[in-house]
């Protein structure tokens, strides 16, 4: 979003406002409450995680981090977390992009109405939606009911407590993030560019592949990064739908605090989670490919 000058006078608002008082002060005063809130209850807690991970009773220590990486139990969970998160991100990308594209092609009013349908599930609690998938995939759920009714199976199939169940529910939960982020960037693309390509003889497919797709890459990139970050931190969905073999780093953190009360180690796991995400982001860039130089704006 560019700095907008609503009055269109070309003069910054700060200068247009009277000269009676110093200009910066009301702004600082107004932003102060929000800033204090964010610093005290977001920046400081986040910093606590970093500090606690490497700062023990006797100063700087790497014991917690070393343990988190070296012990095979935790390595396996880390790997599982990465695996499930990448599957979910890729699926969100493949499903979300066409949906965003479809929405971008609609006239404004239709788009608003259709977008509402994406937003309704987006606003429902992750806990409730994960629980809902338990009901859907359970032995007495509608999917198993349907399979038995059609005669495809005689006995209920084990759908719950599988990697697939976790990934499926995560895609359902994260898909709106991908759609909204992609759509944001797509709407900023000048439709005349594709039209110009068509006018110069490009087929619709070529115009899409050579013009629209590269231009929308920043949105795809931003969406994929956002979804990946959020996916890596999941703990509700794997616990309810994954069973013991599909627990993610988030579940380990909950256990560390709930059962063993080991702050240092829990913080090291959280740090590991963030580090793994940072390592994965360039990978996402690789998948998204060329043209994804800037990440664009991560809009919610």
């Amino acid at each position, binding site marked *: 979003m560019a700095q907008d000058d609503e009055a269109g006078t070309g003069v910054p608002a700060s200068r247009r406002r009277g000269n009676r008082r110093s200009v910066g002060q009301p702004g600082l005063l107004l932003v102060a409450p929000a800033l204090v809130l964010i610093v005290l209850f977001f920046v400081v807690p986040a910093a606590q995680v970093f500090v606690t991970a490497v700062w023990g009773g006797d100063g700087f220590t790497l014991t917690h981090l070393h343990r988190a990486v070296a012990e095979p139990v935790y390595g396996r969970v880390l790997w599982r977390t990465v695996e499930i998160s990448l599957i979910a991100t890729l699926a969100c990308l493949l499903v979300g992009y*066409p949906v965003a594209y479809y929405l971008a092609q609609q006239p404004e009013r239709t788009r608003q109405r259709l977008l509402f349908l994406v937003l309704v599930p987006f606003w429902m609690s992750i806990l409730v939606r994960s629980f809902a998938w338990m009901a859907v995939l359970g032995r007495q759920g509608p999917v198993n009911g349907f399979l038995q009714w059609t005669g495809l199976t005689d006995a209920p199939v084990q759908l719950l407590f599988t990697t697939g169940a976790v990934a499926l529910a995560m895609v359902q939960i994260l898909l709106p993030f991908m759609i909204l982020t992609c759509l944001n960037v797509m709407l900023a693309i000048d439709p005349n560019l594709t039209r110009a390509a068509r006018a110069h003889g490009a087929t619709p497919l070529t115009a899409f592949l050579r013009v629209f797709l590269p231009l929308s890459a920043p949105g795809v990139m931003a969406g994929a990064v956002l979804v990946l970050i959020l996916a890596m931190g999941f703990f509700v969905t794997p616990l309810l739908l994954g069973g013991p073999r599909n627990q993610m780093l988030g579940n380990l953190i909950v256990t560390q605090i709930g059962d063993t009360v080991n702050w240092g180690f829990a913080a090291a796991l959280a740090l590991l989670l963030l580090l793994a995400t940072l390592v994965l982001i360039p990978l996402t860039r690789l998948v998204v490919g060329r043209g994804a130089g800037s990440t664009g704006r991560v809009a919610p």
Partner: protein
Amino acid sequence: MNAAPSRTLSVAFWLVIAFLFFPVLVVLPLAVGETETILFPPRGFTLRWLHAFVTEERWVQATLLSARVALAAAVLATGTGLLAAVALARHLRRARGWLEGIMVAPLIVPGIVFGLGAYILFARLRLIESEAGLVALHAVLGLPYALLIIGAGLAQTDETLERAARICGAGPIRAFTAVTLPALKGPLVAAFLFAFFVSFDELAASLFVMGAKSTLPMLIWADLRLQFNPVVNAAAAVLIILSVAGLTLAEFLRRPARANP
């Protein structure tokens, strides 16, 4: 436009919408089913679970706690969000980028990491089980939404009207409250509702800092983990209906219809 690809896209779109709604539609009827397990389609009809939800002490207490915290957090997020949005739009344009960056950051940090940080901080400050502490944490999570929605609303208002009021002798505060604020009513209510539901549904931070005092999501979480209780079906249905109603209202009120929530 080619007809065939756009028809395929349209079918794909509706399939995705169906996928997004399917689990929710499955879980709703369970609230009135007679069986004590998660069975679909449910058998029989009973209001027993809904009745238990509105009468049993633990559910009532948890719902009241959640509502109290969400109300306070939404007021805090909307209030600070309004002031900050005005500052960013009208005063601190040069610092806008990084200020907005910091204040929107809670959106892209996993809840579990945020919750852990909050837990460590609260444990050190002896704020565990403090309702005010939870309100502040939830306000931080609602602030990005409030800031973005009110900011979008503010961008639609005409600053020259406010200047006209100033020229006619109104002080800066009076000019703002009399001219700009009424135009922001929709976005403000929308911001409040979004912040309310962010808090009402929040689990990770609550789980870490609240200990034995349960919010509604914490109670559902505990019952799902330990021993399934059919009242959870009723609680889930109530949460779904509440958030759909609140969101519909919020979307309707958010006048400057924008692509981003």
